[in-house]
């Protein structure tokens, strides 16, 4: 009896997942996409949308979760750093090309995209490190105070970025060499999304190598498990904190540049990407890179599939499915898929 009760959330989750698969495969006839068996092309495209968007989510959320994992700091300014890098990169790209409007992808070489990305992400990383050194270093362990401090910084940064960069949406231009369309089951698909996924995979692999194959990564992983012990072993954890905050903010910046190329940058982008990062880490579990990957995939799947596979007159309700995903995961695991109680 009690065993069934304890397993109930997991059983419900399995049932919901099975129902969703059955719906997409056989029943979704009255939807914009049609059932997966009738319209395999649409299904493939939606699945690719899900995975590529998940790549962007992972880049943005991994920095957030990296910082939390080591320092227990919820960096509410993550979205601001994301947007700051986007604006800086757009400015650098426009300066490199010598014009501010009507930039065609064919004019943009790979260098004209990569250099602005690195500059933007570095600016975000430096800004993040300044925030950490000035506002977060001396109140370590006061989690709520740190969250509110970074929230206040977000308010200030959002207002100052509005003053500096204006209220109009701006866009980073993908390099021409990756801007093509390919055919998938008779559907045109933009290769820029695949390029975005590629960048995300490279970032993910580099992150994995850094954390698992280097000495600093070893210290970081040890610090996630037990900060006091690392300190007791004579390692200067303050330096490690600064480096990790730099890396986390750098990841936010790379995410910002990808996001600006993918969907543009405007006031409000900071808030929506803070939200995206929060949803990913709440699903995946705070502080876990593995969780960030899993959370990105799940959230990306729901975001891509719900507008396509909801009945046409209900496609406005897609946002509620995101909420449903959150509710399901939290009902089964209150600290997220790979999370542990703080």
């Amino acid at each position, binding site marked *: 009896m009690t065993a069934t009760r304890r397993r109930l959330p997991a059983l419900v989750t399995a049932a919901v997942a099975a129902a969703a698969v059955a719906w997409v495969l056989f029943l979704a006839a009255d939807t914009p996409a049609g059932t997966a068996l009738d319209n395999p092309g649409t299904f493939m495209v939606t699945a690719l949308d899900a995975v590529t968007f998940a790549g962007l989510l992972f880049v943005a959320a991994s920095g957030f979760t990296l910082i939390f994992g080591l320092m227990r700091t919820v960096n509410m300014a993550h979205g601001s750093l994301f947007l700051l890098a986007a604006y800086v990169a757009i400015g650098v790209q426009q300066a490199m090309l010598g014009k501010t409007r009507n930039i065609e992808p064919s004019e943009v070489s790979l260098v004209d995209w990569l250099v602005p990305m690195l500059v933007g992400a570095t600016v975000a990383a430096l800004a993040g490190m300044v925030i950490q050194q000035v506002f977060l270093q001396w109140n370590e362990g006061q989690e709520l*105070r740190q969250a509110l401090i970074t929230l206040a910084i977000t*308010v200030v940064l959002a*207002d100052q970025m509005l003053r500096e960069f204006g209220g109009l949406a701006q866009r980073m231009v993908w390099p021409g060499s990756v801007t093509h369309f390919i055919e998938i089951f008779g559907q045109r698909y933009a290769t820029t999304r695949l390029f975005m996924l590629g960048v995300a995979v490279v970032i993910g692999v580099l992150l994995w190598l850094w954390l698992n194959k280097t000495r600093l990564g070893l210290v970081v992983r040890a610090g996630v498990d037990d900060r006091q012990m690392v300190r007791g072993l004579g390692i200067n954890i303050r330096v490690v904190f600064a480096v990790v905050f730099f890396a986390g903010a750098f990841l936010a910046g790379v995410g910002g540049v990808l996001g600006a190329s993918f969907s543009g940058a405007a006031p409000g982008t900071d808030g929506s990407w803070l939200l995206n990062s929060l949803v990913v880490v*709440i699903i995946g579990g*705070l502080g876990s890179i593995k969780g960030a990957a899993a959370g990105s995939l799940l959230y990306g799947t729901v975001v891509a599939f719900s507008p396509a596979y909801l009945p046409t007159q209900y496609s*406005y309700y897609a*946002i509620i499915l995101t909420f449903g995903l*959150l509710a399901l995961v*939290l009902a089964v695991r*209150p600290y997220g898929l790979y999370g542990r109680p703080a």
Partner: protein
Amino acid sequence: MRTGSSMLNWRAASLALAVVVLAALPTVASAFFINFVMTQTLMMGLAAATIVFLAKYGGMVSLAQFLFFGVAGFMYGNAALEVGSRGLNLGLPPWTAVGFALIVTTVAAFLLGALASRTTGLYYLMLTMVYAVIGYFVFAQVTEISGPSGITSIERPDELAAPVSLYYTALALSVLAYIGFRALGRTAFGLALQGVRDDPVRMASLGFNVPLHRTLAFTLGGFVAGLGGLVNVWWNGQIDPASIGIGPTLVLLIIAVIGGVSYFEGAWLGAFVYVAMFTYLRDLPLVDRIGITEARFNTVIGVVVLLIMVLSPQGLAGIADRFRRRLSDRRRPVAETSDRSEGASHRAQSIDK
């Protein structure tokens, strides 16, 4: 014992004085000050007081309180209007619509609270922030209940037709909430809730249902925030999704933080400071020269919150409290002060943790 009862008298006296002054205010102050500044202060303070209630007794910092503020407004609009291009247009009588709005708000708060009841601390903050943003999207996208441009020309009940009656409504609700929340802290439920805040594992092993206590506290917070939301929708005559977006949600938290997140009076104090700054800052001489015009208002507010969080996380009410204690300590023998400062530092922990 003696200090305890004199504290109580001091509080009761200052509360009575505040109520008398606020009730008499419309006879001396300008209509703009009453109907704009003070009415807004009282209803924002009422909503912010629910953040304080949850943070102080339950250790739960909730960003969803402004969502319930909005849900009540939207539901009142949906229920009260008879015709209109958007919304349900139920056409209920005004007071039935009030009941409908409060029931929906309370049920929503119960369900969301139950979902969040096993999380604590930062997770709670993040989860309720997600609630707030998703709530915004729900109202912005689901055209049956609102849609992007919201619900307009919402009439208030005939009994509240005079503008000043909204001020008195907000004042009465605020006083009730202040007294009620303080009294609740001494009831069995309130004490258990504070036990849950301090040590959930021990409370669970003593047989208390920890998630249920958190859920019920969140439900009550949502209900009271909904009362504030009703006054707001009567005051505005309309409500749209942008008014419950992430910006206003943060404003409410900022109000609670400015006032002091573990002092009930801080909620109204913070609301007054915020509304007064928002209203009068641009009228100050020379302010436009140094760049603090209305457009840069958020920078000013952000810097104020940043300073408060860096210098004194207990906010304005905390600073006043510390000042008052220092004054009264000077008049008392030293031995008595130790346990009182312990109480203050314990209270301070609720945010420093």
